[in-house]
């Protein structure tokens, strides 16, 4: 196990060896000599602690020779990772000069690169169950139906932070059951059903007071709910909106709230809640007044067709006076506290089913319809449909046996409910099939254990599309594989470029990047309402920050720019809310758009709200978490876990009630010698970002202490930095550290297995070679695809009692 990310098993051996890659020497291009001079550096500076007697942290380097390195690559990969970061010798002890370290790292890496081995070519488990994101995307690409797999399937386990690692994707009876039921539900959703009973769907509003426009609803509206729904049949549907007039004193009646219901952006119903008439009714009649008003929100009928629709319940926007209440409750946002909001609504139906109209998914499935084409028998149509769909679902040419099975489902359904039900049963069977749910790499016949071979074109096609699209191959890729054209390097390269240019490759930003940077952590950082009233509750920016990060990374990837631009690009994507959070005042509306950033502190990942928030606490910043984030993800040198029984930070000075700044709290912490070794390296990185508060907004003062933020710090080599710009520039002075960390993540995601010590020579090779192209994104992807890890396998050793 390598210690790539903090998810990995911790390493007792090198625990408390620290950190940092900022001062990494570049090893590229130098061929060191025998190594005697280099290893003398070890003897001079390392073995004082790491000798056979003291064995600090369980490590002795006393016997190190040029010959001992190849014998223990796993150990020396760890050592060189730390050396690159110049963690050791620890700050405060006698230091070798930069040149000596550089030369030592180059020598050790070069020695490791030359160790002949085969483990990087897996003979391990490659049978890969579709995880739920892959399932969702595959269903979308296969049947043109949008599903939310998180509502249908159990969550997937992760390894090294990724959810697509084959060995972690276990299966249990519960999984089988849920995948079978999901197949049934997806098929019904895709095809609709004319014999459906009325059903009910409930939609709830996001929190907040609904004074502003909701994205997706017509312009000129405020608040409300936009619901996306797949309807099972044509017919009448009814909407019941939750009561609005239920305020304790009924005083909201004073103002008119013009309510509209929209179906696919057309107004189908409107009424007014409140206003003079209603207020009079309430004042004078009292009894039953509210019921009469609320009755206008019930039983709203609409006629519509099967398939995907958007239903909106919202208000026309009107001008209003600011409320006095704003002065009392000190809550930002402004507005008028007596305007109504739509809290929820229910959609019921279909009543009086009229049939099934064309929908995108029915068009994709029913490419042959005996009801319309009299020249075809139902059976011939079913065969034609299944042949086409199964080829894409199973990602290979269909066999006679495949069709026979699907026709059995068809006949079951046919008997119960005719042609359509037969096709639906076949689609259900197809989605429940292990050929759909599992990606398998077949073992060619006549191989001896240990033989290396290249995976087949078909398997390569699947591997490629799941890597770059997180989904099944399209017809073009599949056909190229069927014709065995992917074995041709030029064709393969062209296909990779084509897949990268396709919008489906956005999953590299929306899925890979989010997992690589552990953005799941954002879920837990619920901003504290008391500390951040303008960035919590209804104004919680996390979802927008995620969108920004995805759009930003996608612009680098699909623009095929240098991956270093992730660290330094001077643009980003914002809507009005994010813009205001960043202090940009000229962006209006909910739509995200690209902006050039004049303010250099926002450049690259270090200025992005998602990153700044994910590495903070809900109520305050944490220079430690930010320092750790930078080391782990942006430098690829994860710090060791802290020792047990470390007390939490005390936010008050002992014996006084004076509030401490985070810097003062950390200074107390570093006074503890157990903590100081690591923290004196880690903390300055985070302190450089202290002007960003825990929600990523810029601040000049510490809120509690009332003092000016001090973002100055000193890096281990003595470089003085002050603020985000200095930090970014310091990191960019050693670009290969970032690129190596990025490549490690990307290779893991592509291989569907965990990254190990024996993969490091490949990682270094990819980084080295892409350097000549300024680390252009596609050059790294192409190199990953060409790697032995991606394309090759070894025939496994026989395992006794393998099959039960």
């Amino acid at each position, binding site marked *: 196990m390598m210690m790539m990310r903090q998810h990995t098993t911790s390493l007792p051996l090198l625990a408390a060896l620290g950190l940092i890659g900022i001062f990494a020497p570049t090893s590229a291009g130098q061929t060191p000599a025998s190594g005697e001079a280099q290893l003398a550096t070890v003897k001079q500076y390392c073995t004082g602690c790491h000798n056979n007697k003291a064995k600090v942290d369980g490590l002795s380097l006393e016997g190190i020779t040029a010959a001992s390195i190849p014998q223990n690559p796993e150990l020396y990969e760890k050592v060189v990772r730390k050396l690159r970061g110049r963690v050791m010798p620890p700050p405060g002890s006698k230091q070798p000069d930069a040149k000596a370290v550089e030369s030592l790292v180059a020598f050790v890496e070069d020695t490791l690169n030359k160790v002949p081995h085969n483990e990087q070519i897996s003979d391990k488990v490659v049978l890969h169950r579709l995880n739920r994101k892959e399932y969702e995307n595959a269903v979308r690409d296969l049947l043109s139906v949008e599903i939310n797999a998180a509502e249908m399937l159990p969550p997937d386990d992760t390894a090294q932070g990724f959810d697509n690692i084959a060995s972690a994707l276990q299966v249990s009876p519960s999984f089988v059951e849920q995948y079978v039921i999901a197949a049934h539900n997806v098929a019904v959703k895709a095809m609709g059903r004319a014999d459906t009973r009325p059903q009910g769907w409930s939609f709830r509003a996001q929190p907040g007071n609904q004074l502003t426009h909701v994205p997706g609803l017509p312009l000129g509206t405020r608040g409300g709910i936009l619901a996306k729904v797949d309807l099972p049949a044509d017919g009448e549907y009814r909407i019941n909106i939750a009561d609005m007039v239920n305020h304790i004193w009924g005083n909201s009646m004073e103002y008119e709230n013009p309510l509209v219901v929209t179906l696919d952006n057309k107004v189908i119903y409107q009424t007014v809640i409140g206003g003079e008439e209603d207020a009079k009714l309430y004042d004078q009649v009292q009894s039953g007044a509210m019921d009469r008003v609320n009755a206008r929100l019930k*039983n709203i009928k609409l006629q519509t067709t099967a398939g995907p629709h958007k239903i909106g319940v919202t208000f026309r926007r009107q001008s209003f006076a600011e409320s006095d209440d704003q002065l009392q409750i000190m809550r930002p946002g402004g507005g008028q506290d007596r305007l109504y909001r739509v809290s929820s609504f*229910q959609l019921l139906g279909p009543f009086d089913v009229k049939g099934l109209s064309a929908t995108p998914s029915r068009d994709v499935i029913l490419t042959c319809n005996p009801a319309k084409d009299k020249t075809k028998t139902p059976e011939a149509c079913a065969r034609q449909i299944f042949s086409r769909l199964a080829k894409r679902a199973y990602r290979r040419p269909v066999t006679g*046996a495949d069709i026979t099975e699907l026709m*059995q489902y068809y006949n079951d359904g046919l008997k119960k409910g005719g042609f359509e039900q037969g096709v639906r049963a076949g689609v259900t069977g197809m989605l429940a099939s*292990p*050929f759909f749910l*599992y990606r398998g790499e077949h073992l060619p016949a006549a191989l001896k254990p240990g033989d290396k071979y290249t995976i087949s074109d078909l398997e390569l096609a699947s591997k490629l599309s799941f890597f770059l699209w997180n989904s099944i191959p399209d017809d073009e890729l599949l056909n190229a594989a069927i014709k065995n054209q992917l074995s041709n390097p030029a064709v393969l390269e062209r296909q990779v470029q084509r897949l990268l240019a396709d919008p489906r490759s956005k999953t590299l930003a929306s899925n890979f990047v989010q997992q690589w940077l552990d953005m799941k952590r954002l879920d837990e950082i619920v901003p504290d309402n008391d500390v951040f009233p303008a960035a919590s509750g209804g104004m919680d920016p996390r979802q927008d920050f995620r969108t920004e990060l995805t759009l930003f990374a996608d612009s680098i990837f699909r623009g095929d720019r240098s991956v270093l631009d992730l660290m330094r690009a001077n643009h980003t994507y914002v809507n009005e809310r994010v813009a205001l959070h960043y202090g940009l005042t000229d962006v209006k509306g909910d739509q995200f758009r690209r902006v050039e950033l004049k303010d250099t502190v926002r450049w690259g990942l270090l200025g992005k709200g998602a990153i700044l928030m994910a590495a903070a606490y809900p109520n305050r910043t944490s220079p430690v978490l930010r320092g750790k984030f930078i080391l782990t993800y942006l430098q690829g040198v994860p710090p060791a876990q802290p020792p047990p029984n470390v007390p939490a930070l005390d936010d008050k000075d002992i014996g006084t009630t004076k509030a401490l700044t985070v810097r003062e709290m950390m200074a107390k912490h570093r006074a503890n010698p157990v903590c100081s070794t690591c923290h004196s390296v880690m903390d300055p990185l985070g302190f450089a970002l202290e002007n960003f508060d825990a929600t990523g907004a810029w601040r000049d003062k510490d809120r509690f202490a009332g003092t000016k933020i001090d973002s100055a710090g000193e890096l281990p080599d003595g470089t003085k930095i002050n603020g985000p710009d200095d930090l970014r520039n310091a990191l960019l002075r050693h670009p290969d550290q970032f690129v190596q960390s990025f490549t490690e993540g990307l290779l893991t995601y592509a291989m569907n297995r965990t990254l190990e010590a024996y993969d490091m020579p490949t990682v270094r090779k990819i980084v080295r070679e892409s350097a000549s192209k300024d680390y252009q994104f596609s050059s790294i992807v192409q190199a990953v695809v060409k790697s032995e890890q991606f394309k090759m396998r070894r025939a496994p050793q*026989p395992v006794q009692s*393998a099959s039960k």
Partner: protein
Amino acid sequence: MFISKKHLSRRTALQGIGAVVGLPLLEAMLPAGVASAQTPAGKTPKRFAFIGFPHGAVMDSWSPKETGANFTMSPILKPLEPFRKHMTIVSGLRNKPAETPEPHGYIEQGWLTAVKPWDFGKANPDAGVSLDQLAVRHIGQDTRLPSLELGVGGSARVSWRTPTQSLPQESNPRAVFQKLFGQGDTDQERAEILAETGSILDRVQGQAQRLQASLGVKDRVIVSDYLDSVREIERRVQMATKSSNTELQIPDAPVGTPNDLTEYFKLMFDLMSLAFQADITRVISISLDREASMRTYTNLGIAEGFHPLSHHGNNPQKLEKLVQIQNYYAQVFGGFLKKIEASKEGTGTVLDHSTILFGSNMSNSDRHNNDPLPSVILGHAGGKIKGGQHVSYPQDSRHGDLLLTLLQRNEIPVNAIGDSTKGLSEV
């Protein structure tokens, strides 16, 4: 069944209390058929239900005049007359530690905790964990759902898993149905899905064997694991097919929330009795309305909002209307009692084995006070609660003692709730 339990806890561990994956068919269906097999022989299951309502009760019309066994049923509790021998009316208790100057939205939080919200977690780490959730810690693992929280028309914060985490109440009957019974809206649909699942599993095995043939040995192991899982599900399908037509009739899934209030109440109480009968959960709490509700009980001919009405100012007409609403609560609650009384279990009925608290954490709604509280216990905790009596306690006796009693009668080892450390021996 124990298998599904295992997987539930796995999911819980994986994602905490976040989004809940839609319940598949079999996990939902199996308990219905095997409920009685759940509990070791000789041990009857313990069940709890907490039926709370806001705005207190008109106490003169709630408490019977006489104590002991021969009391005359009060106007509000009249609809519970058929269950007289199962009921213990407990009068005179005060929930002092939960009294708050800030009533609405807070009062309900102290009903089952006997602590005021801002004191949650202070006296000890469990201060503020509600009675139902204390019970769940001991009996929740025996059923597929540890507990069920329901609301009629809204969500009140009654049930507290920890002093900082209240469990939201589900008010949409369709969502409740799906939580209980999973896929398939009707018997016919469920039967169809079962049949289809059966044939899929059948064919999948053939496919998996074909897949296995072309794989390496280690991959073959994965397919074998997969096949084992498939066979396990096949076994469950067969069990479910056999059991789905026995005893318990599962109604068709409700379409959504009915507009008619009586129908809505009936639906929620029916789902509760089904959850008990099918042994899907043994702990249920439900709020019949929200604090400060503006609901108009037009079905009773009352067109005023409930909350303004509750500030009755001793106006006889208003008091009469309040009695009418509270009497209506007793009626709809009675429907639930009738169902679980009719449900035989071992030598008794589901009602015999249950401990049900019907009441409010408010007394006089005009003054928002918690003294004395209206409380009635239904059921016998499997013989440990005698029933058939009205017991009355002197001024300032503790509501917490009653809460503690309910646990102790069910042999749940909890020693203190709120300010209470001992039970009520008379109950």
